[in-house]
Every structure is written in structure tokens, then in C-alpha cells.
């Protein structure tokens, strides 16, 4: 039989209630307790003399007379401070119900009687066996020994509402128990359970008077052997019979606990079923206590939820069980009061741990809303225990419950063994489920999956979990691990989903070698991502799928969509083409098309790009040059290059030129020279090639802009005398002559350098020149003669002035134009003045009339003398003027090349007479 029992524990301690002095509590001794109830922190006892004894937690007792003869039933409300008593008030055995209001005490400290209800006449003479009041004070039921039940409806505390009472049940056997099912939750609403000796009924009290009675069972229970449970077991009615406890729902039977023994008293107390039963003969311990007297009973406390016996012990014959202050109070027949007090949870758990009953401990702790940390610790202990027993699966399921509180490494370390990789995997995935996994955990989990080759799990982990974006692991780590273990598909999926473009491309390119896919992927990305990734992977892509890569690059660098900048303006996104040049190494074809495309679209690029493209053109041109067959292509290319050179805006000519030169692209070189007006170079180019026609045509074309070309041409022709059409040199000479570019002597000199040159080439020229010169000499000589004569004349004049006498014949003053009078002043310039006129006009000893003229001359001389930077001026003029010689002469005259005659010397002779 013991096997068919629940586990027994000592979760309660029984002790006799003692007062302050340590003596057993004996205040109840004088009374003959007939009824009892408890609630709102007090115990109530009704005695056979009609007195109600009220006892509080400090064991203080007060009494008041409630009935004249006897208190037969008491019912204390839990929610309101009302006590309802049933008792005799006269010898006639007519019972009265009294409602006591404990909130309204009268002067002597006794509660007021709110109402007295007389029992209905037709049943009042029957002995009342049961009595119960619903907590809402609206229902009250009385059971009689003749098997009838009377229900009172309406507020029982108020006289006015004459509550109606109806007989709701009439059975054959005495009523033994009445309980209201208090709740209205679920279906059925409030119900009254009725137990008689033979049957169990439930009476549904509907709100709309749809009241019905239904039988629940065909066997009943003894008096006091039924009780109402609480919400923890859904307010079932429970009865105790000798074979078992039976539970009832309002509409059906519920569970049944087969605990044998004759029950005496049932009470539901804080989720426990407290049962007093007669001692079981089969129980050896109980019989051994016979010495205490034959009326020993056993008190058992069942925890129905957790399926255990929380307390089990003998007790003297019990009169009443009361439930208050978290304890069970047992009133024995001899009025001794025992308290059965529940132990602290910690103590209980301790007991369970000692017996390794962890799961029980956990459910117990949970039921009592135990602290979470402590619970976790219990899980851990349980798991450790299971682990030590070798039950790894179970241990793991416990460890999983510790997630979030217990350091994961503690668990992981224990399961690192390859044998337990399944458990480890479970733990790790649970860890991820809770978003508590670190990078290492992800790595480990993925490693587990890959080790187990559990692709399905892996799929689920990767695909499902990440699909809803609520990622519970570190993506990068996951990708790395998957990649390392060769699960590229998963890695790709992850990286695509989470936009780890770098990873995606790396895997696609380096592992899968699926360049096309990588490229397609890249093409879908945002600008910044493409820009960066192309830089990294472009080379690889180019070497494999060059065409598509080029296309993408073109798009990237020309117009990759638009974006709005911070100012809200639309800007076209494009990358800097130069960043991608390295990709094109050994792919000049692609690069050419790339650059063509980019340059066509964009105008903001550095000139170097043009040069690069030019370089590419030239390179391919050069290649064609080598190949005779590609003449046509070459021509086309040449055209293209020229177009290119012509078509674009000012750019770095030097670079372009250099490239053309390097690649020996004549048209380009010439074009560029022309653009830069480097005619000499053009000529030189022709010269270098000994292109006689070229030289002359160059001269013809550019001679006007740079006459010196002719000179150069002349040099060229002269030095290559005889190898060309003589007419050419004649033309050159003609121009030289016309523009007087060279002195005849030099022409002769130049020509003389070439031994092959013949005089007849230049004979005409020389003759012409000589004639010209001759004529000029003659002209000059005539001029010289003229000046000489003039000079002579002046000199004579000066001499005259110096030595000869001067006659001043002016009769009038040069100033006032009146006839001169003495004193007068006469100047060599033949001006005469009155003394006073002169003084009034003159500033110094000069002739006032001549003074402005003199001053002008003097100033000029002075200026010439003073100009210190004449050299500079001279040089510029020398450069500017055609006839350098005349400039030199001019300056010579101005005394540039030596100290001039003193001006003072020139002026002195004009002094005063």
C-alpha cells in the first residue's frame, strides 16, 4: 500500500499553542465548544451556552452572548466583517440565525446584531446539520437532517429586504455538507454543492432564476467530510470517503485521490487539503501510539497540486480545524489548541534537495513565486544532479532553463565532450533563442551543426531565424564560421539577407568562383557599397567576366542613380574612375571602352583621364602600325584619335604631346604643336624628317605668325643644299628678303657652310640686296651732309654769340610793349625789358619770354640724364623695334653709353649779359 502513496514530507510543524508565559493556551478550557469558524484574523468559537468566543492572534479572548442556549453553527465572512451564527434562543429548539456586524461594536465592545432571521416554520423543528453563507452575503443555505436544503436569497444583513427562502432540495438521507462555489468564472456561475450521506448534488444558482439541480455522484460522505477548494484547483468540491477523496466540478466528477482511511474532518487551507482521519489499522506507527488512548486520530495535509503529503501526524481527537494566519489550528476534544505551522520555503526546499527531488522543489518554488535567481540556482542544482547521474538529456533541458542567469560557459564546459554535442547544440540554440548568445556561442553552435552535418537544423537556424530579421546571433561570426566549414550556401544567404556585401562577394568570388553571380549581386547594391566593393574585387571580376564588369564600371562611374544630398538637391552618384584603373591592367580594350563611355558622360573629370584614354588609343595605334594588314583599322583609329584631340576642351597639352611623341603619332604631334603655336617645333618636326615639302608648307602656313620659321627653313635648306627643288630655297629667300629677316652677309655665311651650295642660288638676291644697300648708303650720306651743314651753321652762330657784339634794337619792352626806358634789361635772345618789367616777370636771371622754351629743353635733358633704369627701357625697346640699330643709336644719343655733356654747360652761355 505504501507504494500507492504520495511522498510524505514534514513541511509543517505541529505544536501546542502557548500563551506569553509559555504555558499552554487554556482560555478555551471552560467552554463547551460546539461550533467554530475563522476569518479576518480571528478565530471564533461558539459554545453550548450560547456564548461566542473571539480570539485574536495575540491569543486575547473576548466573549459575548449570542444566543440564549446554544451556538450550533458559526460562519465568518472573509471579505466583510460579518459573523453569522445559528443557535437556540429558547428551549423550544427553534433556531435563529443572527448576523453580527463586527464593524459596529456597541459600548460594551460586543458586535451589533444586524439581523435575526427566523427559520421557516415547516422545517424549523428539524435538526440543522449544515450551514453556509456565500461570501457576497446574498446567499445562505441550511441543510437539515431530514435531507432538505433551504436556500436564502437576498442581502442577509438587511432587514428590509425580506429575503426569500426556498427549499431547493429534498433528499432521503441527512445533509452532511453544503458549500457555495463562489466564483462566476467559467460556465455555470455560482453553484451550491450539497452532500448527503448518499449523494452529491450541485445546485446551479443562475442569475436569471434558471436554477437547476444535478446529481454528481451516487455516494455521499459523512458530516464534516466535505469542503470547498479554492482557485488553485478550480473551486472543486471535495469529499472524503473511506476509500478516496472525490473532487467535483459543478457539472461533473473531477479527479479522485485514492487515499484510504475513514475520514473525520476535511478542511481546505491555503491550497492544502487538511484531513483528519481515524487511525489506519494498517499503519504500524499509529497503533503504537495506543498508549495515548484509543481516540487518537491522524492529521494529514495533502498538497493536491504537487501530489505530495505535506504533513502527517497523530493528533488527539479533533473537534475543529481552523485555518487562519497561514496556519492550521486544531482544536481537540479537550479544548487544547494546536497550531500546525507551515515551514519556510527555504527549509522545505532544503528537504527536497536532500532527497534529490529537484523537480518537485522547483514546482513548489514556482507555485510560491520564488525569487527568479533562486529558481535558476535550483535548476542548476537539479541539472548538476542529473548530469552526475549521467542523464545528460534531462540535465540539458534543466540547464536550458537557467539561460539568462547562469553563465553559459559553466554549462558549455560540461558538454564539450563530443558525445554530448547534441545536448550542447540544444543548449546553444536555446541560448540564441533568448538572444543571449555571444559571438563565441554562435561560432560554437554553427560548428556543432556542421560537425553533426545537421543541414536541416542549420537551415532552420539560418534561414528561418534570420528571415524575420530578429537576429539572435552575430551575423559576421555566423558567416565566418559557415564559410570556414564550407556551407557557402548558408553563408551567402545570411550575407545577402543582412547586407554583408563584403562577405557575400568574398564567398561568391573566392569560394564559389561564381563571378557572374557576384557581379549580378553587386549590380543590385547601393552606390557606396558598389563603389567600395568594386575597388576590392574589381580586379578579380575583370579577369573573369571582363565584359560585364566593364559595363558595371561604366554605370558606376557615369551615372549610378541619383541621391539627394543634405540640401535636398538631387545629385547624380558616380564614382571616380581613377579608383578603378588598376582593375584594367592588362585589359586595355575594356579600359578604352570604359573611358570612352565615362568621358562621354562626364565633364568634370581630371584631364589625366583624357590622357589615359589617349594613351590607350595611341597604344593600339602603335600596335596597328606594326601590323601592315591593319592599315584600314589604323586609318580609322587615326581618325578617332584626331577627333578625340580636336573634340575636347583645353587640357594638358604637354602630357598629350608627350604621349603622341612617345608613340610617334605624327598627326597628333603636329596638331598639338599647332594648338600651342609651337611653330618652330612643327618645322623642326619636318626638318627632323627631312621633309622638304613639309618644311616649306609649314613655313607657308605659319610664316606669317612666326617669321623666324623662314630663317630656320633657310638654314635647313642651306644645310641640305642640293637635295631638293631649288625653287624652295628661292621662295624662302624671297620671304627673308621681303621681311629682311637676315643680313645678306649671314645668308652668304649660312649658305657657305654647305660646300655644295652654289652662288647662283643667291646671286639675284645678293645683287638685289646690294643695290638696295647702295641706295640706302647714298641716301644716308646725303642726310649726313645735310646735318653737317646744319651743325656748321649753328656752330657759327654760337661763335658769333660768343665773340661778336650784339645789338639790341628793340625799342619796345618785350613785356609791356612800351618803349623801352632806362633802366632796361637785354637778353641775347633779343628780348629786352624794362627793369621793373623784368623784375616783375622774372623768377631768376632768365629771359621771361624764352623761359618756357628753355625750361622745356632743360627738362628733357634732365630727364634723359636722370632716367636710371634706362637699361631696362632700352632692352624692351630693343626687343620691340624692328630696327634695333636705330634704337641703339637713339639711346646712344641720349647718353646711355657714357656720361653726356653737362647740361649746365649747355645752359651757361645763355646767361645774363
Amino acid at each position, binding site marked *: *500500500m505504501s*507504494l*500507492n*502513496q*504520495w*511522498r510524505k514530507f514534514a513541511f509543517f510543524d505541529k505544536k501546542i499553542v502557548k500563551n506569553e508565559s509559555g504555558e499552554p493556551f487554556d482560555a478555551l478550557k471552560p467552554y463547551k465548544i460546539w461550533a467554530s469558524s475563522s476569518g479576518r484574523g480571528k478565530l471564533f468559537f461558539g459554545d453550548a451556552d450560547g456564548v461566542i468566543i473571539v480570539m485574536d492572534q495575540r491569543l486575547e479572548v473576548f466573549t459575548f452572548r449570542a444566543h440564549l442556549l446554544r451556538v450550533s453553527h458559526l460562519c465568518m465572512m472573509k471579505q466583510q466583517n460579518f459573523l453569522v451564527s445559528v443557535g437556540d434562543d429558547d428551549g423550544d429548539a427553534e433556531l435563529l440565525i443572527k448576523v453580527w456586524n463586527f464593524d459596529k461594536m456597541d459600548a460594551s465592545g460586543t458586535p451589533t446584531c444586524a439581523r435575526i432571521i427566523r427559520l421557516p416554520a415547516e422545517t424549523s423543528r428539524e435538526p440543522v446539520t449544515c450551514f453556509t453563507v456565500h461570501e457576497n452575503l446574498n446567499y445562505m443555505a441550511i441543510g437539515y437532517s431530514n435531507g432538505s436544503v433551504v436556500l436564502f436569497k437576498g442581502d442577509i444583513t438587511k432587514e428590509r429586504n425580506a429575503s426569500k427562502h426556498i427549499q431547493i432540495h429534498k433528499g432521503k438521507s441527512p445533509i452532511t455538507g453544503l458549500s457555495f462555489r463562489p466564483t462566476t468564472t467559467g*460556465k455555470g456561475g455560482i453553484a451550491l454543492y450539497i452532500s448527503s450521506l448518499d449523494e452529491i448534488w450541485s445546485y446551479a444558482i443562475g442569475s436569471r432564476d*434558471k436554477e*437547476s*439541480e*444535478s*446529481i454528481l*455522484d*451516487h*455516494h455521499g460522505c459523512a458530516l464534516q467530510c466535505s469542503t470547498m477548494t479554492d482557485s488553485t484547483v478550480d473551486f472543486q468540491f471535495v469529499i472524503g*470517503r473511506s*476509500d*478516496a*477523496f472525490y*473532487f467535483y466540478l459543478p*457539472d*461533473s*466528477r*473531477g*479527479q*479522485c*485521490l*485514492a*487515499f484510504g482511511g475513514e475520514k473525520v474532518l476535511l478542511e481546505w487551507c491555503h491550497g492544502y487539503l487538511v484531513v483528519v482521519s481515524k487511525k489506519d489499522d494498517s499503519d504500524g506507527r499509529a497503533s503504537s501510539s495506543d498508549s495515548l488512548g484509543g481516540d487518537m486520530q491522524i492529521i494529514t495535509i495533502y498538497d493536491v497540486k504537487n*501530489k505530495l503529503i505535506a504533513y502527517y501526524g497523530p493528533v488527539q481527537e479533533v473537534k475543529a480545524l481552523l485555518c487562519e494566519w497561514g496556519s492550521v489550528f486544531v482544536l481537540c476534544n479537550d479544548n487544547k489548541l494546536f497550531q500546525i505551522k507551515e515551514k519556510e520555503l527555504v527549509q522545505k526546499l532544503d528537504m527536497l534537495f536532500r532527497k534529490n527531488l529537484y*523537480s518537485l522543489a522547483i514546482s513548489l518554488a514556482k507555485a510560491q513565486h520564488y525569487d527568479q535567481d533562486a529558481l535558476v540556482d535550483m535548476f542548476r542544482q537539479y541539472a548538476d544532479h542529473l548530469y552526475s547521474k549521467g542523464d545528460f538529456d*534531462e540535465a540539458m533541458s534543466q540547464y536550458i532553463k537557467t539561460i539568462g542567469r547562469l553563465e553559459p560557459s559553466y554549462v558549455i564546459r560540461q558538454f564539450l565532450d563530443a558525445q554530448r554535442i547534441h545536448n550542447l547544440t540544444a543548449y546553444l540554440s536555446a541560448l540564441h533563442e533568448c538572444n543571449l548568445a555571444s559571438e563565441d556561442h554562435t561560432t560554437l553552435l554553427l560548428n556543432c551543426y556542421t560537425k553533426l552535418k545537421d543541414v536541416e537544423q542549420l537551415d532552420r537556424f539560418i534561414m528561418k531565424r534570420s528571415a524575420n530579421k530578429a537576429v539572435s546571433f552575430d551575423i559576421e561570426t555566423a558567416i565566418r564560421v559557415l564559410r570556414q566549414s564550407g556551407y557557402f550556401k548558408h553563408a551567402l544567404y545570411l550575407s545577402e539577407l543582412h547586407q554583408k556585401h563584403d562577405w557575400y562577394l568574398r564567398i561568391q568570388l573566392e569560394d564559389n568562383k561564381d563571378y557572374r553571380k557576384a557581379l549580378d549581386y553587386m549590380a543590385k547594391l547601393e552606390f557606396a557599397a558598389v563603389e567600395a566593393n568594386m575597388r576590392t574585387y574589381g580586379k578579380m571580376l575583370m579577369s573573369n567576366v571582363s565584359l560585364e564588369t566593364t559595363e558595371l564600371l561604366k554605370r558606376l562611374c557615369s551615372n549610378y542613380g541619383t541621391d539627394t544630398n543634405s540640401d535636398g538637391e538631387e545629385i547624380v552618384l558616380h564614382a571616380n574612375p581613377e579608383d578603378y584603373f588598376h582593375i584594367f591592367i592588362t585589359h586595355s580594350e575594356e579600359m578604352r571602352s570604359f573611358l570612352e563611355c565615362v568621358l562621354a558622360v562626364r565633364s568634370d573629370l581630371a584631364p589625366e583621364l583624357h590622357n589615359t584614354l589617349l594613351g590607350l588609343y595611341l597604344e593600339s595605334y602603335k600596335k596597328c602600325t606594326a601590323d601592315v594588314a591593319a592599315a584600314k583599322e589604323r586609318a580609322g583609329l587615326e581618325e578617332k584619335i584626331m577627333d578625340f584631340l580636336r573634340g575636347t576642351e583645353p587640357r594638358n597639352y604637354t602630357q598629350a604631346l608627350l604621349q603622341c611623341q612617345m608613340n610617334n603619332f605624327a598627326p597628333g604631334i603636329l596638331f598639338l604643336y599647332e594648338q600651342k603655336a609651337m611653330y618652330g617645333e612643327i618645322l623642326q618636326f619636318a626638318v627632323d624628317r627631312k621633309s622638304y615639302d613639309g618644311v616649306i608648307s609649314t613655313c607657308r602656313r605659319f610664316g606669317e605668325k612666326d617669321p623666324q620659321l623662314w630663317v630656320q627653313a633657310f638654314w635647313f635648306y642651306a644645310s641640305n643644299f642640293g637635295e631638293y627643288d631649288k625653287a624652295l630655297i628661292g621662295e624662302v629667300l624671297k620671304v627673308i628678303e621681303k621681311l629682311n629677316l637676315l643680313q645678306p652677309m649671314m645668308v652668304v655665311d649660312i649658305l657657305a657652310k654647305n660646300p655644295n651650295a652654289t652662288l647662283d642660288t643667291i646671286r639675284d638676291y645678293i645683287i638685289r640686296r646690294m643695290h638696295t644697300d647702295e641706295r640706302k648708303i647714298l641716301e644716308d650720306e646725303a642726310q649726313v651732309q645735310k646735318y653737317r651743314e646744319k651743325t656748321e651753321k649753328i656752330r657759327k652762330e654760337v661763335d658769333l654769340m660768343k665773340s661778336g657784339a650784339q645789338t639790341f634794337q628793340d625799342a619796345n619792352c618785350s613785356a609791356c610793349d612800351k618803349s623801352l626806358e632806362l633802366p632796361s634789361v637785354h637778353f641775347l635772345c633779343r628780348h629786352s625789358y624794362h627793369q621793373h618789367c623784368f623784375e616783375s616777370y622774372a623768377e631768376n636771371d632768365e629771359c621771361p619770354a624764352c623761359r618756357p622754351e628753355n625750361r622745356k629743353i632743360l627738362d628733357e635733358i634732365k630727364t634723359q640724364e636722370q632716367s636710371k633704369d634706362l637699361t631696362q627701357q632700352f632692352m624692351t625697346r630693343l626687343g620691340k623695334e624692328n630696327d634695333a640699330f636705330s634704337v641703339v643709336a637713339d639711346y646712344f644719343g641720349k647718353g646711355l653709353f657714357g656720361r653726356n655733356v653737362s647740361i649746365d654747360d649747355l645752359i651757361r652761355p645763355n646767361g645774363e649779359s
Partner: protein
Amino acid sequence: MSYAYLFKYIIIGDTGVGKSCLLLQFTDKRFQPVHDLTIGVEFGARMITIAGKQIKLQIWDTAGQESFRSITRSYYRGAAGALLVYDITRRDTFEHLTNWLEDARQHSSSNMVIMLIGNKCDLESRREVKKEEGEAFAREHGMIFMEASAKTAQNVEEAFINTAKEIYDKIQEGVFDIQNEANGIKLGPEHASPGVGGGGAGARGPGSSSQSGGCC
């Protein structure tokens, strides 16, 4: 929660075959590897849907031990369906089926739908009873048969629901007298006719006749 019908079930079979675990799996969707012995009768309930109708299942899970037989027998009465469970890894539990069946037929209404369940089918390596044997036994006694595992939840739902379907079909065929609650079928609140709701004239009838099964 309102329902169209309420079916009462009972789970029977030798001790340790996994009756309580089947119930736990069905009502709570969990498995408890270490399960205490059932002392008496446990109770569970769940709503299911059949043919678009809400059906409430009230299930009594009985103790398998012989010593509780007298108590559990009283629960046969008023059950519309029974799950007769054996353990495929224990031959003796299969051999006791005849006794159980006899007991069930004797104490229950003759229309009770009985489903035979070979539990623990996840333990294939320890199998002692062939599936074919179970099938044959079921066929012979007019039962539905299914192998299930309370641990993996395989066929657990199906076992309960198929039984309910069978009962439902029988109701449609008119085999069951649904006004008689002794058959273990109750109409839901919205279906209840005044006769049924009114205090159980029908329910009281069979009470006296089958009282002998209650306790002795």
C-alpha cells in the same frame, strides 16, 4: 467557452503504460519523463474542433493499479469514449487487454467508442508487441487502433480526435441518445434543450441502476 458537445473520455490500461503521459501531452502539450503513480483518477479537459463544431473533451485518467480498480470502475459509467492503452515494450500489458476490455464493456454503456493505443512507439528497439498484433486485436474487438508516443507526441492528438470523430459520427447516425447523459455526451449550452437543462430527469435514471459500480 461554449461548446456544441461535451464528450467524456476515460483512459484505461495497465499501470505504467503511459496513460497519464498521454493525457498530459494532449492537454498540456508536454512530456514528463518521471511521472508519479496516479493515485485514483486524474482529470483533464480540452477543446477540439470536429466538423467545424467545438467539442469539449473531459478526460478521466485512471490509475492502472489493481488496488484502485474498484474506484476507477465507477468512472467507466458515463464515458462516451475510452482509450485503452498498452505499452509496446511490455508484452504483459498487451496480454491484459482482454481483462480491461471486459471490464470496460461491463461497466460502461454499450455504445462506448474504444480506441486501442500502443504507446511508447518511439522505443522501437525495445518493442515486444508487433504493430500487426495490435491491429489484429483491435479488429477482432471492433476497436480503432493506433500506435502513439506520449514522448514525441506522435499520434497523440490523432488518438483523441479520431475517437471524438467516431463518437461524433455515431451521434450523427443516431446511435447515441444524446439526451441521456449516461452515454457520456452532453449538449453544449446553446444546444441544450429544456429537457436536458432542467435538472436531469434523464441523468437520474441510470444512476440507480449502475450504482453498484460506484463503490463496494
